[in-house]
């Protein structure tokens, strides 16, 4: 297993995209904290940018990478290697590469400009979001053989989680404004990892005005500590489930 992960890691590092991603993230982070002297405002700006870019890069880069690894997968499947191992090694390799890019790009300025506990939870959330969207990329590439279809599915999923989901939530909110739907809304929020991540950070920043509707309900419903705990568990599930489904599909796939 370790050997396979090593091959994947070396291959990704040779790829210039991951370097570009690191530079992009650090350019954003340094310029935000350079221009903004209020660290809470800085964190909020960075959070919004991060929740848009990190999922996009994670999901698209991973999908393309998985399809481009089809030769590697073919070769390994005919060798005495477990199928599980091939897929899991690709996952771990991609996660490690993207997490390192994130920590180098955003982690360093965060540690310098922001109080330690918030910097750490920002980093944790960023890493979780990377892992979750890599898992979703594995799901998208497992369900179809066709590369362009797979990338299309990935883009649609990103669009859904990053933009459309909020629209749908607002729509439900206005349509059912006369009914007591608070509890249902908490459940619906859990369907979006990006919203979960946002709430997790905002709960700690103590800027309840910015929590938004679902965040406010969440805070009210669970309180700060339980809320943070539950949103972490939900995020963890988001990282595991799509990948687990993709692993099941991959094990039965004909190559």
């Amino acid at each position, binding site marked *: 297993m370790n*050997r*396979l992960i090593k*091959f994947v890691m070396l*291959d990704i590092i*040779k790829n210039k995209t991951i370097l570009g991603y690191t530079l992009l993230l650090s350019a954003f982070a340094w310029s935000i904290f350079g221009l903004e002297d209020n660290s809470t405002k800085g964190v909020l700006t960075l959070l919004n940018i991060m929740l848009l870019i990190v999922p996009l890069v994670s999901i698209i880069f991973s999908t393309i990478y998985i399809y481009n*690894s*089809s*030769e*590697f997968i*073919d*070769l*390994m*499947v*005919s*060798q*005495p*290697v*477990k*199928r599980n191992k091939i897929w899991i090694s690709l996952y771990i390799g991609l996660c490690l590469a993207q997490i390192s890019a994130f920590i180098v790009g955003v982690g360093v300025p965060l540690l310098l400009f922001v109080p330690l506990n918030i910097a750490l939870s920002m980093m944790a959330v960023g890493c979780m979001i990377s892992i979750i969207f890599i898992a979703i990329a594995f799901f998208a590439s497992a369900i179809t053989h066709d590369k362009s279809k797979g990338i299309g599915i990935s883009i649609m999923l990103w669009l859904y989680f990053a933009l459309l989901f909020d629209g749908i939530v607002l729509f439900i909110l206005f349509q059912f404004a006369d009914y007591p739907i608070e509890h249902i809304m908490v459940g619906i929020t859990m369907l979006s990892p990006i919203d979960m991540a946002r709430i997790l950070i905002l709960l700690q920043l103590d800027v309840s005005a910015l929590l938004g509707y679902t965040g406010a309900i969440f805070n009210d419903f669970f309180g700060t500590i339980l809320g943070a705990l539950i949103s972490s568990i939900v995020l963890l599930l988001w990282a595991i489930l799509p990948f687990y489904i993709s692993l099941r599909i991959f094990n*039965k*796939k*004909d*190559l």
Partner: protein
Amino acid sequence: MIKIDSISKKFGKLQVLNSTTVEFKKGECIALIGPNGCGKTTLIKSILGMVIPDSGDVLVNNTSIKNNYLYRNGIGYMPQIGRYPENMNIGQVLDMIKNIRKYENQLDEELLHSYKIKDLLNKKMRTLSGGTTQKISAVIAFLFNPDVLILDEPTAGLDPLASEILKEKILKEKNNGKLIIITSHLLSELDELVTRIVFMQEGKIKFNKNAIELKEETQMVSIAKAITHILKASINE
């Protein structure tokens, strides 16, 4: 050694393998032949676990290959079209496979030398010609002294010299008592090698005969002629 027990496989609506049953024994050199799309490659890929049959089972050394991968230590596979990570060079691909196989005995580098691959180690896989890629596939298939060699169209794309070298190597391994399974359309090339012919059509084994018996039955001098004789006869029926 390898027993294929009524496996069936459908790709969409197409029935590629239709409860195919066949057994291959040690020391044999089998020619798996048949028209395009008759299921040869799918059969081979099911032995390797690359294609998972809808029903039936494959036994290698009397153990099922389901949820098993270690049996592939004893198999050398040369695919019809070798696909290798494009941004790696030949040396890296060979190192990677050696690394994964964890093979501790003496490597069989005969083909590596006779194809002079050592001079090409720094070449990227994507720059290689089809023939050179085939050579790499052959080198990898023979590298770990496997008991079973599965060669899918081995000489397609090789120049006459390279193809002669490969044939001699196959003959040598056959005399070492290994099981060799070859699929090919070039029947004339198989004449000196093959001990048994398995003919497939529409996912079924049409006939499975000893090469010498086949020649005697049809009273033909070569396998190629014997098979064309049978095919013509079956069309006339």
